[in-house]
Each structure stands twice: as C-alpha cells, then as structure tokens.
C-alpha cells in the first residue's frame, strides 16, 4: 500500500521521472503474479494454523458438551448449541469468578512485569551504552536469561524459592514462595523480570547506539547535564524502539503460561492466568468454555496491540521505512540501504535539536 505513494512522492519533490521505471515505479503484472506465487504458501499455512483455529474456537465457544456419563454409563459426546451462554458465564457464578480472577491476574502480571522490565531494561541499556570494555562479554551474558527456556527458568526459580532454598536463606526469612498467596505472585514477577528485562535492554541499547555522539557533544557544550541529556535526547530518541519493545513484551506477558505453570503449578488461584485457565478447561474436555476463554484472551491481546499501534504510533511493520525507501529511490538517491529511517530520523531530530 505504501508503494502506491511512490510516484506522487517523486512528483512532489519535482524530480523528473527516472528513465527506467523498473523498480518502485509502475507495477508490472508479472511481478504481481510472482509475488502471489511466492507468498501463497506462507499465507496458506498461516491460514491453516491461525485463521482456521481462530474460527474454530469461535465456533466451539458457542457449544457446550453435556458432560458426564449417559444412561448406559458411557461418556456422552453430545454437544448442544448454547449461543452466547459460555460468554455470559464469564461474568456470573463459579466459572465467572474464576475467569475474572484469571483476567485480573493476567492484567496484574502484565502491568507489573512490563513496568519493571522497562525500567530495568532502560538501566541495563544505559549502563551498557557507557561501557566500552568488556561489552561483547556483557552482551553474551545478557543473552543467557533470554536463551534459558521459560520452563527451565520456572524450575530454576522454584528451586531458588524453595522453603529451605537459597532465597529464604539469603533473606533470612521463611516465606512459602511457591504455595498460594502474594508471595507466589512476587516469585512469578521476579522470575519473569529476570528473564525478559535483558531483552528490553538489548532493544533499547540498539536504539541508543544509532544516536550520533555529536548530539550529546552539542548538548554538553550548551551546558546540559547528564539528567538533562537523558530526558531531552536519549529518551525521546529511543522512544520508538522502546514502544515496540514494550508492545512485544506486553503481548507476550498477556499470554503468560509456562512460568506460573512450572514455578507454582496449575490450578493455583493466585497465579492462574487466562492461558492457564483455558488450558485447564480444555484439559477437562470442556472445549466450549475453554474456547470462550481463548477467544476472550485473543480479543484482549488484539485490543492492546491496536491501541499501541494506533494511539501510541508504534511502528511495528516498518511502514515508515518503506515509505522512506520509496521516496529515496524516486529521487534517484542511491544511498546505501543501511542508512534508513533511524539515521535519517535521528539526523532530522539532531538538526531540530541543534536549532533549538
């Protein structure tokens, strides 16, 4: 869609149209056919493993199995159409209480872990950005928590949080971290933040490293201190990167499953997330309500993603970059492709910063 803006962009800048309008200019029918051919396997597989399950989940959520044994003592397989009853049950009665609890847990974990991760990740990135010695070694060690499988990290932290484990030993306390209650929530949050803060740190560091040093130099000459530089240069310039990182982490935290499942265990009220609840229901063969939970989680995730992209303007697809590229080629400006959005944006902002 952005490519359609290419010819007008060229016209606006007033450059004569390139003599060989092969690339971003007119679209040849052959290219469209080739693209369709190349993309169709991917789209077909994605339709099969994502669109079909989603539609099937919506469909299943409208039915309810009459569970239990029938008159002859066999497990009955009868399913009846119940309309939106599974959804209505999300808010009333026992299953409603469980759903709302899981919903609250999911939201609580998402907000707290993503907040802590962002703060910690920013600190990590700031520290790494200043370090010149030992940076590659640091980068390797910071990737370790990221690479540890979540299930293993669940086990690892369960061991650390054992009643007579190292955590209680160091704290001199006797807290039952892995039982029910607020302590188990804290345990999940600590384990999750440990694993994911480095990821945010890495993304933010990448955003920081494209900020040219001259910007800071200019700020220093103008008498800006460290805090001022952080607030007026670093943070605004890493904001786009940070937004994308926070979005990814939020969507990931919303579907949290492995960690509380392994660290605390299934069916524990204080840490049960929506994913765990849906999994538990489908394990009990109550596919109707399990599907309803899964659909609700999907909608929740979709709303958060849309809010981020539309309201906060997280540039996830790199659409801005595409636009920029096509403008560049229209100007017949053969810059190396590595100098794309980030650099140009930064230099633009640098100019603005300098004139300010």
């Amino acid at each position, binding site marked *: 869609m952005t*490519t*359609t803006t290419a010819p007008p962009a060229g016209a606006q800048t007033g450059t004569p149209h390139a003599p060989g309008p*092969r*690339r971003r200019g007119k*679209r*040849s029918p052959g290219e*469209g056919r*080739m*693209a*369709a051919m*190349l*993309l169709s396997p*991917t*789209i077909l*597989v994605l339709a099969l*493993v*994502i669109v079909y*399950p*989603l539609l099937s*989940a919506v469909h*299943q959520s409208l039915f309810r199995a009459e569970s239990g044994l029938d008159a002859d003592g066999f497990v009955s397989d009868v399913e009846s159409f119940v309309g939106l009853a599974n959804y209505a049950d999300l808010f009333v009665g026992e299953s409603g209480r469980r759903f709302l609890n899981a919903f609250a847990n999911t939201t609580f974990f998402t907000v707290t872990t993503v907040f802590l991760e962002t703060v910690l990740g920013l600190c990590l990135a700031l*520290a*790494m950005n200043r*370090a010149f010695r*030992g940076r590659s*070694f*640091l980068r*390797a060690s*910071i*990737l370790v928590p990221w*690479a*540890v*499988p979540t*299930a293993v990290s669940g*086990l*690892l932290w369960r*061991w*650390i949080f*054992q009643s007579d484990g190292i955590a209680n*030993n160091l704290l001199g306390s006797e807290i039952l971290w892995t039982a029910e209650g607020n302590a188990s929530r804290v345990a999940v949050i600590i384990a999750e933040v*440990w694993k994911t803060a480095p990821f945010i740190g*890495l*993304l933010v560091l*990448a*955003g920081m490293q494209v900020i040219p040093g001259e910007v800071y130099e200019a700020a220093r000459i103008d008498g800006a201190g460290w805090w001022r530089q952080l607030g007026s240069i670093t943070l605004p310039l890493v904001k786009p990167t940070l937004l994308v990182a926070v979005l990814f982490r939020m969507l990931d935290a919303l579907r949290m499953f*492995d960690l509380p*499942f392994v660290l605390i265990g299934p069916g524990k009220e204080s840490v049960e997330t929506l*994913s765990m609840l849906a*999994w538990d229901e*489908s394990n009990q063969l109550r*596919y109707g309500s399990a599907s309803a939970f*899964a*659909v609700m*989680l999907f909608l929740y995730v979709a709303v958060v*993603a849309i809010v981020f992209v539309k309201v906060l303007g997280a540039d*996830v*697809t*790199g659409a801005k970059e595409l636009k920029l590229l096509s403008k560049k080629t229209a100007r017949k400006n*053969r810059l190396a492709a590595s100098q794309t*959005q980030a650099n140009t944006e930064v230099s633009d902002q640098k100019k603005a910063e300098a004139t300010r």
Partner: protein
Amino acid sequence: MTISDLRNAAADSGATGSGAPEATAAVVPGKTKPKRTWRSYSVYAGLALIFAYCLAPFYWMLVSSLRRTADIFDNTLLPAPFSLENYAKVFDGSTMFGQALLNSLIVAGTTTTFALVLGVFAAYAISRLNFRFKSLILGVIIATSMFPGISVVVPLLRLFTDIGWINTYQAMIVPNLSFAIPLAVWNLTTFMKALPFDLEEAAMIDGCTKWQAFRRVLLPLAAPGVFTTAILTFIHSWNEFIIALSMINDPKIQTATVAISKFTGATEFQAPFGEQMAAGVIVTVPLVIMVLIFQRRIVEGLTAGASK
C-alpha cells in the same frame, strides 16, 4: 582481555577489597586521576552488577546440579564434593530424557526448516517485488506472531484428537509454524530490505532472470541473515512449551522442556531437585553455547525488527 576486565570489575565491586589495588593498576597503569578512577569504578561496579544479575541464577542451577543428593540443600558457592550423580540419574533410562532431547531436536529442526523455506520466498516477495497490499500482508503476518498460543492450542487439540494426531511429531510441528513463520518472514524481510539492490539489478541487466538474480545474487548475500533467522527460530521452537504439553501425553514423544517439567517425585517434598537442575542445565547448555558463539548475530536479529 575483556574477560580479565570483567574479573577486575567483579573484584572491584565485590566484597573482597584486597583485589582492588591490582585491578586499578591494570585499568589505569602508572598515574592515578582520582575523578577518572572513581568514574571507572562506578561503571565497572554497574557492569559487575549486570553480570551477576544475568548469570547468578544460572550459576546456581549449575552448582546445584553438581552436588550430591545428600547435600543438595548446601549453600556453598562451589559443590563441596563435586559429583556427576545427578547427570547419571537423568540419563539412567527411567525418565527417557535422551529420547526427549532427540524429540526436541526433531521438532525444532523441522519447524525451523519449514519456516525458513517459506520465509525466504515470502521475504523476497515483500522486500523486492512491487505488488498491491504489500504492507497490509506484512502487517497481517506480523500480527499473527502476536497471537496467543492458547487460542491455537484449544481448537487444534480437538481437531488433532479427531484425526488421530495426538502423540505425533506433526501435532507439534504444525502449530509451531504459527509462531515460527511470522518470526522468519519478519526477520528475513528486514534483512533483505537492508541489502543493496544494485547487484541484482546489474545481474538482470546482464541478462539474468529475476529468479536467477534471486538465487545467484541475493541468496548468497542474504545467507548470514538466513542463518541468524534459523538460530532465532530454532531457539524459539526449542523453548516451546504449551503446544508440546497439550498435544503429547506419551513420554516417548514429548519434548525436553515438557519432560523436565514432569520430573517430579512422589510428593512435592521429594522433588528430585538435583536431577531437575541437571536436566535444566542439559537443555539450556546447547542454547548458551549458541548464544556465546553467535551473540552478535542474535542481537542483530533480535533488534532488527524493532529498530531500523
């Protein structure tokens, strides 16, 4: 060089004050500037802190796995009598852990292969061809990567039960593609977009077809990106948990991450922690080695999507 720096840093900030003078000598040989030293101290202290934050829990897993069952609750920093007892138990056959590792390898390997083949073609189309709805398609593919796994698992569990796929490899591989393909397409697209178009253009002027230009020019250039994507996809598939947990109940087919989560004793109080830690180390060590070797590429791949 860098390692010794970090050791110095650790010594600087650590409780042992005796190492500090030597360390300073190493960092600033000869003359001492008070302000500068203070500053480098604080930077090194920060680095040591990050270092400890990242590695201490992993180190604790490693140390615990090397203790004997009798002194598993020791809190010494090194295993007092060093023992491989737990590792022997992990592979003694009753847990089928070796088979689980093999299963993980098969599932993650196949998933990665499929995702890469499809991803290379899709990424080429998106990064090099002109067609309608391009950014819409890319947007949809990326959006699917944010899909919560459970929304795939619940309906597919039912479908796979009906068609008899429960306890098969394909019951894990096919749902795995739901996150592997978007990851691969996205990474490869970002990578291919960053490659200059000139070489392909030159090849086409010299009479190559688009396909030849793709195969003979772009693909070799994109090889590092394909490799990075392969590593990332493999790590994601290797770490996958919820699909493998739901689709498989036969210990012969289950993957390593699920197998270790089921390493439990009769009651919660008899949990074989030593064995669990040993198994955890075994599952993680291949990834840590990969991370150490390919750290630069992995970081590139991870950050490519978010910052351009």
